[in-house]
């Protein structure tokens, strides 16, 4: 106990991130890049540098994430400040209408990623404007729009049943979850992320408008994390429980790691998914009020990390290795075996790429408590070899379960990227 406090106090006195942390990051491949979105230079947290950062308006190319490419943007793209996630159900019948929808969506998404308006603007005063207009004059804000197909898209409606990847289906039920239908599933999932909420919302709104008569919104969840303005150093973001979340994530700059962890291959079971990735989305409500009444010791033992520094219990710094065998002077493990970090890490053989955001949804009308938590998103090559075993373990014994509740769930097979002239989903049809 005293040792824990000692450690926390030490790290409070320290700057959020030391030069050594940064160098280690650079060595292990820029986790800060994944989560913070600022350049490595920006991570040397000098006050003077902070000022120049703030004054600098990003150039169009820095502010723009290319839409077309081998992979869809928004997966290994460094996480933007905001998310607006939309799940759709297709109402049109027939594969033709579905194809047309993806073609229209692709054209609109590509334009919006460049900061352009949707469609050809006409000056006809007798017609409603083609684009809804709220992003006029705004920068692209690193907008990414990532499309995926839900398992239900492979039923008998569109003749796609034979195309369903064998290992792609709805998740099994996990211990303790209380899924609410209004936060589950969807024929199509669209992850929209941007450094500006209005830009992200604009994209979802216009995609929904384009889809009218072909697809309807099933659920929408907005989310946020600390912005790059609030943390120019790009340190690991904290979740709403106050702890750093996402310290351990594979290196998005390593093609080898991404091929191993994230990108599906043609011979994984579905040729059309080659270069795509499988997404798990969970809306995880946090029992904030209960958490806030827990002692610091309980909180830290729940995560297995120090709240202030993010370091594994018994270690000094955030990126110190998680040593599950390390023991205190009494011979007890520093990191409880049922802590979140111990279970999520396991033997380290299973990895996923996490890309989560916090959400706040007003208040729970029944209890008057805040409806807030985590919009967990992860990308992996195989849901049932990566996400499912990890989540089964967590659902069974994670100490954190006392403070969280999984209320929403969906999985989507995110298509490979499209090249100019093609469209998202063209490998499927």
């Amino acid at each position, binding site marked *: 106990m005293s040792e824990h406090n000692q450690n926390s106090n030490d790290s409070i006195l320290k700057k959020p991130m030391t030069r050594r942390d940064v160098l280690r990051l650079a060595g292990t491949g820029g986790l800060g890049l994944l989560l913070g979105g600022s350049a490595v230079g920006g991570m040397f947290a000098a006050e003077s540098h902070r000022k120049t950062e703030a004054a600098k308006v990003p150039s169009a190319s820095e502010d723009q994430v290319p839409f077309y490419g081998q992979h869809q943007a928004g997966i290994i793209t460094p996480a933007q400040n905001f998310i607006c996630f939309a799940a759709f159900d297709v*109402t049109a019948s027939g594969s033709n209408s579905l194809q047309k929808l993806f073609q229209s969506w692709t054209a609109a998404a590509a334009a919006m990623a460049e900061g352009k308006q949707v469609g050809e603007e*006409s*000056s*006809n*005063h*007798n*017609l*409603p404007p083609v684009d809804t207009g709220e992003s006029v004059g705004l920068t692209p804000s690193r907008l990414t729009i990532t499309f995926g197909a839900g398992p239900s898209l492979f039923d008998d409606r569109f003749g796609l049943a034979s195309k369903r990847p064998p290992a792609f289906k709805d998740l099994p039920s996990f211990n303790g979850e209380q899924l609410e239908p209004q936060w589950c599933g969807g024929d199509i999932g669209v992850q929209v992320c941007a450094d500006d909420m209005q830009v992200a919302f604009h994209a979802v709104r216009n995609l929904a*408008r384009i889809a*009218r*008569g072909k697809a*309807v919104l099933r659920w929408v969840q907005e989310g946020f994390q600390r912005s790059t303005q609030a943390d120019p150093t790009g340190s690991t973001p904290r979740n709403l429980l106050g702890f750093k979340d996402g310290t351990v994530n594979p290196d998005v700059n390593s093609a080898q790691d991404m091929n191993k962890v994230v990108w599906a291959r043609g011979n994984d079971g579905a040729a059309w998914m080659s270069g795509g990735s499988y997404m798990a989305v969970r809306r995880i409500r946090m029992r904030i009020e209960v958490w806030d009444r827990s002692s610091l010791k309980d909180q830290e033992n729940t995560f297995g990390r120090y709240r202030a520094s993010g370091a594994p219990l018994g270690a000094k710094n955030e990126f110190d290795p998680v040593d599950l065998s390390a023991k205190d002077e009494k011979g007890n493990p520093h990191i409880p075996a049922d802590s979140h970090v111990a279970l999520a890490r396991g033997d380290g053989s299973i990895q996923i790429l996490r890309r989560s955001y916090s959400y706040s949804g007003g208040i729970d009308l029944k209890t008057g408590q805040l409806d807030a938590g985590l919009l967990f998103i992860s990308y992996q090559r195989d849901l049932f070899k990566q996400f499912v075993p990890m989540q089964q373990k967590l659902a069974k014994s994670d100490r954190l379960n006392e403070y969280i509740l999984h209320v929403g769930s969906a999985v989507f097979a995110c298509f490979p990227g499209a090249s100019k002239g093609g469209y998202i989903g063209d490998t499927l049809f």
Partner: protein
Amino acid sequence: MKYKVILPTSVLVASLLFSGCGQKENAEAGQTPAAPTTTETSTTPPADFTVAVEQYRTFAVEQCDLFVKETEKFTNAVKSGKLEEAKKLYAPARSYYERIEPVAEALGDLDPNIDARVNDVDAADWRGFHRIEKALWEDNTTAGQEGYADQLLKDAQLLRAKIETIDIDASLMVTGAVELLNEVSSSKVTGEEELYSHTDLYDFAANVEGAYKIFEILKPELAKKDADLEKEIGERFDILQKELDTYKKGDGYVDYTELKDDEVRKLSQNLDALAEPLSNMGKILGV
């Protein structure tokens, strides 16, 4: 609330209607960026809508005649204390009004006088159908409604007299069709229009029928300009009508409270799916 929201539209429609009245008004309409104006910005000679406009005027007058006739039956029932008969006549009489609502809305105070809901206007000014609706369903009586009944019939007759004077043009028809569906979107599909009688689906169906009539009249011209759009709108009218048909009961529709949440949502989504392409019908007006 309703009137606060629709006021700009009414003003807009009115300015269109009377745009022929003087140079000054014309210029004002042209300065408003959002105003669908058929004058000044035209580069190609606009299509001739004389026949279409006459067809619509005939329809509007027909509906208005029936509206007065059916309203009189309703107000007579109210005045003679026939509660059940009045309840039965209420929604069908309103349907004639709902089909041509945008036209009525262009006529100043007539719409609030006939169709204001509670809280739409100051309590002292509240009259018309919904005032009587409250008495019939909530208080379960016709007592004290005689004055409102007389006023309502007078307002209906005034509408009939004034409708002859409205300068209907193609632009009013196009915006009117969308306006009818917007009416459904904002109050009928939510069950807010008929707070006491829950006869919202009668209004819903009538608004859609009114929009369909306009589409039907303008269809040949639209097919010339954009055949795909004409086909799409037609298909979506069919889909919505088929869905509405499943809620038919006798000569009318089921009580709004019988709808389940997901049924309301589906109706609303199908309405949005129709209103989106319908809002592009303005193509026929030229630029």
